[in-house]
């Protein structure tokens, strides 16, 4: 087995362990509530319903789905088995819709919003941070406190302010949703235009906050690298500045990539709340609805899906990182 395959297998193993733990947490944490969870949920759920037949039907669906009459470990097995067949249960709030169907309709929106936003924010933030560290002076004095302030604004706060200023006061962008509600999703210019107009504000608010955090990290890493001995040495050797800055950028960039892997969970969480502010038809908005209706299967489906995608994103970054970082390559060689 070559060095990279070894690295890959090791990472894969740890991510599988993490996956098992994430799934178990998703199952066991909500079941730590005392009493029969289904009875409790159903009683909360059915407060508004007067039709006793509906109550009974809801109740039976859940007895069957969760197998609450069986011991906990058996319930867990049922849960895992259901996961493998892609069955996440039936939603309370939108009974009798399947959770999987709801999530499937929401995923494209969330990915379409968050993936580009986080990547663009990350790239812009890193460039800005590196330039601030390199130029110093006024540019740094302005960029740094601004970035720090933007970074302290929670994602959703910026989202609300942008919603108020650009959508409500100025009326440049629509207030909520993923497209104009009277339209039917189709491949026409009108529909795509509508999607883009609805996409702009949530996209910008995620990008801006991401830039702040990344710029701060990159600035610190670059200053650290700029003070390193090899920079001084290269300068004394008379190597051109542009070349040195390339070395510095490369070295400062590597920790930023791991940084991206580690902060992606927080970013996804923040962006989900952004969706709520704009009532964007993604996972975040469904989670918000589910929590308000105490729609337990949907909440659990959302959290599981989010945990899974964050794990997947981390794994991908780790695997790419193994290719890029010479130090990891070196340690792979040593292992042999």
């Amino acid at each position: 087995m070559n060095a990279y395959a070894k690295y890959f297998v090791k990472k894969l193993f740890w991510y599988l362990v993490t996956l098992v733990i994430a799934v178990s947490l998703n199952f066991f944490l909500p079941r730590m509530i005392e009493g029969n969870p289904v009875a409790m949920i159903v009683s909360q759920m059915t407060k508004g319903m007067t039709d006793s037949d509906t109550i009974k039907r809801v109740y039976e669906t859940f007895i069957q789905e969760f197998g609450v009459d069986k011991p906990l470990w058996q319930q867990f097995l049922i849960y895992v088995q259901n996961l493998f067949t892609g069955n996440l249960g039936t939603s309370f709030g939108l009974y009798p819709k399947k959770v999987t169907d709801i999530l499937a309709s929401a995923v494209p929106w969330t990915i379409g919003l968050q993936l580009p936003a986080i990547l663009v924010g990350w790239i812009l933030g890193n460039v800005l941070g590196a330039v601030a560290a390199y130029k110093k002076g006024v540019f740094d004095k302005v960029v740094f406190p601004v970035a720090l302030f933007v970074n302290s604004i929670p994602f959703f706060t910026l989202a609300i302010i942008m919603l108020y200023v650009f959508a409500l006061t100025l009326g440049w962008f629509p207030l909520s949703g993923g497209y104009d509600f009277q339209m039917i999703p189709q491949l026409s210019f009108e529909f795509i235009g509508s999607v883009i107009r609805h996409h702009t504000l949530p996209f910008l608010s995620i990008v801006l906050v991401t830039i702040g955090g990344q710029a701060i990290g990159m600035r610190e890493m670059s200053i650290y690298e700029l003070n390193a001995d090899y920079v001084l040495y290269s300068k004394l050797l008379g190597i051109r500045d542009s070349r040195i800055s390339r070395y510095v950028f490369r070295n400062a960039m590597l920790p930023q990539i791991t940084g991206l892997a580690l902060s992606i969970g927080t970013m996804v969480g923040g962006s989900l709340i952004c969706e709520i502010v704009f009532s964007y038809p993604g996972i975040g908005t469904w989670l918000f609805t589910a929590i308000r209706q105490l729609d337990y299967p949907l909440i659990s489906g959302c959290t599981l899906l989010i945990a899974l995608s964050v794990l997947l994103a981390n794994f991908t970054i780790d695997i790419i990182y193994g290719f890029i970082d010479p130090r990891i390559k070196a340690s792979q060689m040593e292992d042999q």
Partner: protein
Amino acid sequence: MKNSFNILIKSPKFMLGAGIFIVMLALVLIFPMINKKDPLEMIALAFQPPSSQLWLGSDNFGRDLFLELMYGIQTSIRVGLIAGVFATVIGLIIGLASGYIGGIVDNLLTSITNIFIVIPSFIILILISVSINSRSSLVTAIIIGITSWPWTARAVRAQTSSLRNRDHVHIAKISGHSTPRIIVFEILPYIASYVVMAFVLQTASGILSEASISMLGLGPYNTISLGIIMNWALVFEAPVAGAWWAFIPAALSIALITFSLYMMNTGMDEIFNPKIRS
């Protein structure tokens, strides 16, 4: 200690951060003593704009938003501090144990830490909050604390395991000092500056977490926090009603508090790690 304190005072970033934080804290602690009204009392019509009586107008229930804001900042800071203490202490204990003991314990604790760094703490926070029916602000704070320790644990472990092999620790071991004594006197002083910084950061992220979780409607009950004010504003559609005073002051307060804490942290960072001073 006294020496580092003297340098800290000279750092403009630290002083700016500490200044903002202390002024805010003083304001929210003193104001409720002067204005003893109940913040939850409905005294006006819904969404009244700011005026000389209601400095920040009224919310959807006709309550005085300025008074609510004072109590909200208080709760948010308290939640942040408690969460910060829990996260720092748990992270410190796990990091010290893992770094100092080494071997199997280290492998095990490091794996656990890495696993919980990857699983979004946000998710665990939601799962626990959904399960607990009566959440006080203390419970929320503790939940935030116990979901955000892994960062501190990882950094403390890295520093402890390098300190463990320093000469002064070896000498203490040979002199027959007990392990707790070695940890307290030979290791802790070297990571103290880091721990203080970690605490400040954890407090800031605790305040942000509280705001996020309250936004989702999973915040503490029977209290007012900045996140809860924002949640009310959103649920009762204050933006659509054009009532900017219902959410912008709360939003800016969150940003200002976290900004002041980040500033303090950056100031300390520049002092304790002279290499990154620009």
